[in-house]
């Protein structure tokens, strides 16, 4: 199963419409998409969910062999925690998808660290999903349950000093 998610910041038609085209080309694979509300594109080849509880989200996320999403850190960290391979399409200002291009910057940085797969446009997204669906899917990066010890310790030390 391939899980497509737009995250918590609203619809992302470019991701959903492109993934719907991919789903049509790969009828043997199940596609589940969390599409949020406010989008104008209606998916025809994916199971599309507008509202999804955190529990349901977890269920699909855990069952997925590949996660395809916006370049939001919440989704990316969730993929690292669950050791899921993730491919991101950054939301861009030029399409009115976000208020600034920080998703593009995040995607570039995490790609340079070899943590995530990135598609910078719809054509790349299509090509990458089609080629990834053929091969063995392995996560590029994973993390434990909590932040780095360095950060935890630093916070604890700071909080221990009286105000």
């Amino acid at each position, binding site marked *: 199963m391939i899980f497509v998610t737009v995250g918590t910041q609203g619809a992302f038609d470019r991701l959903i419409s492109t993934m719907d085209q991919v789903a049509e080309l790969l009828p043997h694979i199940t596609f589940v998409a969390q599409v949020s509300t406010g989008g104008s594109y209606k998916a025809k080849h994916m199971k599309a969910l507008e509202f999804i509880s955190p529990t349901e989200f977890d269920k699909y996320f855990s069952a997925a062999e590949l996660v395809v999403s916006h370049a939001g*850190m919440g989704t990316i960290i969730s993929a690292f925690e669950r050791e899921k391979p993730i491919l991101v399409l950054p939301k861009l200002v030029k399409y009115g998808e976000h208020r600034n291009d920080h998703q593009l910057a995040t995607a570039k940085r995490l790609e340079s660290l070899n943590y995530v797969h990135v598609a910078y446009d719809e054509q790349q997204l299509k090509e990458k999903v089609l080629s990834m669906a053929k091969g063995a899917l392995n996560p590029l990066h994973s993390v434990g349950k909590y932040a780095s*010890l360095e950060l935890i310790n630093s916070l604890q030390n*700071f909080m221990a000093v009286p105000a």
Partner: protein
Amino acid sequence: MKILAIASAGGHWIQLLRLKPAFEGHELIFVSTKKSFKDTVDGYEFHSIPDASRWNKMKLLYSLMCVLKIVFLSRPNIIITTGAAPGLMGIIAGKVIGAKTVWIDSIANVENISMSGRIATSIADRSYTQWPDLSNSKVTFNGSVLS
């Protein structure tokens, strides 16, 4: 000590939860912008507030009132946030009651500290960035929410 941990929904909240071991041994109150998040911090005091961004000034003001009310009533010793605008409200409210305040800029900000972060880092007692190249005399780098 009493810690109030606040973040808006989505990536900010996920990052906040990854700091949980740092809060061990303290009384903990969580605040976020989605009611359903209560389930993700089972056993802890949780308050939800309306979401707001700097793009809607009225909502921002209303959200600030909600945060101030929670902070006044609960009187935390420490307020810690991973952003965004509601987190900045937490820092402001913390300053008002004299709590110690900590801003952790989101790991999504790889090129610049966020707009909320630029204000927050100028008033918080301690500020962190999660990218070494963004640290400076006021903003510390000490690892990130990724382990």
